């Protein structure tokens, strides 16, 4: 069994480490320039999808609110 993160609501977040670095460097999506926006990819998950790659800075609040959960699944 392995522990995975599952979304309980729809989520959107930077889709890869390079995109996350661009968003973090700018201080958030609302601060991205048009050029930076063009370089960013976005991951969309729906409720019930796995979201193991959710940015670590978002995880504590979303766990606290029950928007994501740790679940045990077969390997």
């Amino acid at each position, binding site marked *: 069994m392995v522990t995975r993160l599952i979304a309980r609501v729809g989520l959107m*977040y930077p889709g890869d480490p390079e995109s996350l670095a661009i*968003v973090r460097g700018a201080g958030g999506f609302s601060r991205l320039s048009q050029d930076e*926006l063009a370089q960013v990819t976005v991951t969309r998950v729906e409720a019930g999808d796995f979201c193991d790659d959710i940015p670590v800075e978002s995880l504590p609040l979303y766990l606290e609110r029950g928007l994501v959960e740790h679940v045990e699944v077969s390997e």
Partner: protein
Amino acid sequence: MPRYGSNSFGVLIVDGYDLLATKVKGFAYKVASLMEPTGGLGDTTKSKGPSGLQEASLNQDGAFFDDAANSGHAALKASTAVSRILTFAIAGNTIGQPFVGMSGAYTMAYEVIAKSGSSPMTKANAAYDASGQLDNGVILQDHATKTADFNTKTLGSPVDYTVDRGQTVIPITSNSIANPSVVTTPVPHGLTTGQKVLISGVATSNPTINGERTVTVISATQFSVPVNVTVAGTGGSFVLATSVNGGAGYQQVTAFSGFTGFVGKIRSSADDVTYADLITFTNVTAAPAKEQKTVAGTVDRYLCFDGDVTGTGSLKVFAGFARR
């Protein structure tokens, strides 16, 4: 101080009907606090007191009468028993600008006026009384035509609550040497424990308490922030970074062709990195379509609108959110 003329009146949609196309000449809305007589036998002067209730009314006049499909007459001819969803914006049809929304606007009067003379075109007026709350919010999706999936976050336009023009800037008198530091305000701060604020302009505090902080309420004029301050600070102010009384999302679809479905969502974020669904509107398959959905509890700092279409075609949609 911004001033707005008729060219800034950017949105007027009633139940999914775009009424700006009918060239409305005048529009007014009023919110009145209801008073109740408080006098009695023996009094020599009349007295009144606030009842705690408010009522809202709206009037639009001078629109050209239009009985084409999906136009003004179709929108307004229904009986007074129909509860309408109404959204309008007087400061421009732009993401981040304010809008007013209402669910529960009942048409109390609809006049069609035909006359001869210098202005012979037939006109139409409508008056609404409201049952329920008039919401003041922010536009998340400007009334615009879309032909594919879209998201206002990745288009560069998420809305930040801390720069909302409807915010009240609360002054700070000082913050103390303490862990956590105690912030004192000269006026009631109105905060709830756990709420987030954006503090700025505080001088000399070491370390600084400027930035986004989660508060713990101590009294009406004091709260603490989780900073171990060793040199007291003075001055500064704060605005809210989260709201705690939920809110209402509005979506109006005024045109729809080709697509087999459209799902609009309002998403929120505390950190502007990960966004979560806040409101999911019902799948739309035809226009006109309108919906208001409410949420309770904390609403985070950043909001955006996401549109997911099925098939190929085009639609015209407006969306906004009002914090309560």
